[in-house]
């Protein structure tokens, strides 16, 4: 069982890494997170200069002023990037005929989905490492003894990894539902756009203004971003991932009925 999952994961990783898309995405993310970091750092320096000797300056938290907003900006990039990474996973297999090999093989539908998802998690992890490198470089060049919160950075990156994994599960489900990679990308992008709209609904206030944002995966990243680990947020991502994988597994199995 594990051997088949690992084999599927390995091939999916090879497929991802032999196309330029993942490298372009990595470069794009690295460039933009670097840009966010520079802008936010400049703002932070200006603020500390403005406050000067004012005791309020002690409340200017480096992580909350720089790292957290950077991570929260990157989540919007994930809305665009992850559907592009996931679109080919199953849809292209059907379009190019290799799905036939898997359908007539000993690979169970859930093993296929698990292997594909594991490969996507490795890619998302790689992207999170790329994003995490720049704050670490900033910490390295900062003055010795400056209070850089490594724990909070790790938590923020963990949140980003969970968000990327959840988006991957949604993208995998979309890719399982069609044989067109473009449609799969469009479908998962629309879903993630809907998540964005749910978050915006919070601006209205009232009952719905409280409920709707809590349903959005984007809102769940906020506590991770400021370095706070909440069991409910982790549980939310786990449930979203499980739902995505279940839809993908059912859809793969359904092909046997529908042809």
């Amino acid at each position: 069982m594990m051997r088949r999952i690992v084999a599927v994961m390995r091939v999916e990783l090879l497929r991802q890494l032999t196309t330029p898309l993942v490298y372009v995405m990595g470069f794009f993310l690295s460039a933009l997170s670097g840009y966010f970091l520079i802008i936010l750092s400049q703002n932070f320096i200006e603020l500390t200069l403005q406050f000067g000797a004012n005791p309020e300056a002690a409340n200017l938290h480096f992580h909350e002023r720089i790292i957290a907003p950077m991570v929260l900006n990157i989540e919007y990039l994930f809305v665009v990037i992850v559907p592009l990474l996931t679109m080919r996973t199953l849809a292209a297999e059907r379009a190019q005929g290799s799905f036939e090999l898997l359908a007539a093989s000993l690979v169970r539908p859930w093993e296929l989905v698990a292997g594909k998802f594991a490969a996507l998690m490795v890619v998302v992890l790689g992207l999170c490492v790329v994003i995490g490198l720049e704050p670490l470089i900033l910490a390295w060049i900062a003055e010795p003894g400056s209070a850089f919160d490594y724990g909070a950075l790790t938590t923020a990156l963990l949140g980003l990894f969970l968000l990327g994994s959840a988006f991957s599960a949604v993208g995998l489900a979309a890719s399982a539902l069609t044989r067109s990679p473009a449609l799969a990308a469009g479908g998962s992008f629309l879903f993630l756009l809907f998540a964005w709209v749910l978050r915006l609904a919070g601006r209205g206030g009232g009952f719905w203004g409280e409920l709707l944002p809590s349903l959005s995966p984007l809102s769940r990243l906020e506590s991770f971003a400021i370095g706070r680990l909440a069991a409910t947020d982790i549980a939310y991502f786990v449930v979203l991932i499980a739902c995505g994988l279940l839809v993908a597994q059912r859809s793969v199995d359904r092909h046997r009925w529908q042809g």
Partner: protein
Amino acid sequence: MIRAEHLSRSFAARRAVHELNFELEAGAVVAFVGPNGAGKTTTLRMITGALAPSSGRVLVDGFDTFEQPFEARARIGFLPETPPLYPELRVHENLRFVAAIKGVDPSAVTAVVERCELGDVLNQLQHQLSKGYRQRVGLALALLGEPPLLILDEPTSGLDPAQIEGMRALIRSLSQEHTVLLSTHLLSEVEAVCDHVLMIDQGKLVADAPAAELITEHGDLQKAFLVRCAVHRREQA
């Protein structure tokens, strides 16, 4: 080796295969013949368990391909009409992947590479391969694990005459150790490699007989095919 019982499959309102009943003995080389759209590929996909029948069942070595798909699939090597290769992977990577998902020792790859004469193309990508080599790689994937039943869907489709002859020689050599079910619409191929014929037309079986018997009865396989199809269509009308 294969027993089909009242096997039917419909796609929406279209009936692709209707009430197929046949039984194939182990060790035979059987041709599955029919015009384009007759239901050959649909039937083969049901035998491999890749497609569920609307009704009826197929047993492979006693295992129901739908109820016990993994037991049945472990006994089948399948070459679809388009060889199922990953375009991003090299030939040896495709072979190693299929060996892994079949639970076969990686050393088995060497044996099929020798048998299908793929030594020169192991590091090539799919688009760098000729059509003939693509078919050979597809056949090598089907052979991994030495399954007792080989199902080949149009294995010589699109090949030039020299490649066709090479593929036929390979299939003949395989018939000593495997039961082979070969789908084709080329009757010359049937005469060259098969000893039993299943003919299908409009989703219904119109002949299930040894090739020699059909040739004796009708003169040649083409006449046999035309007569059987004409009779079937007259009955349907």
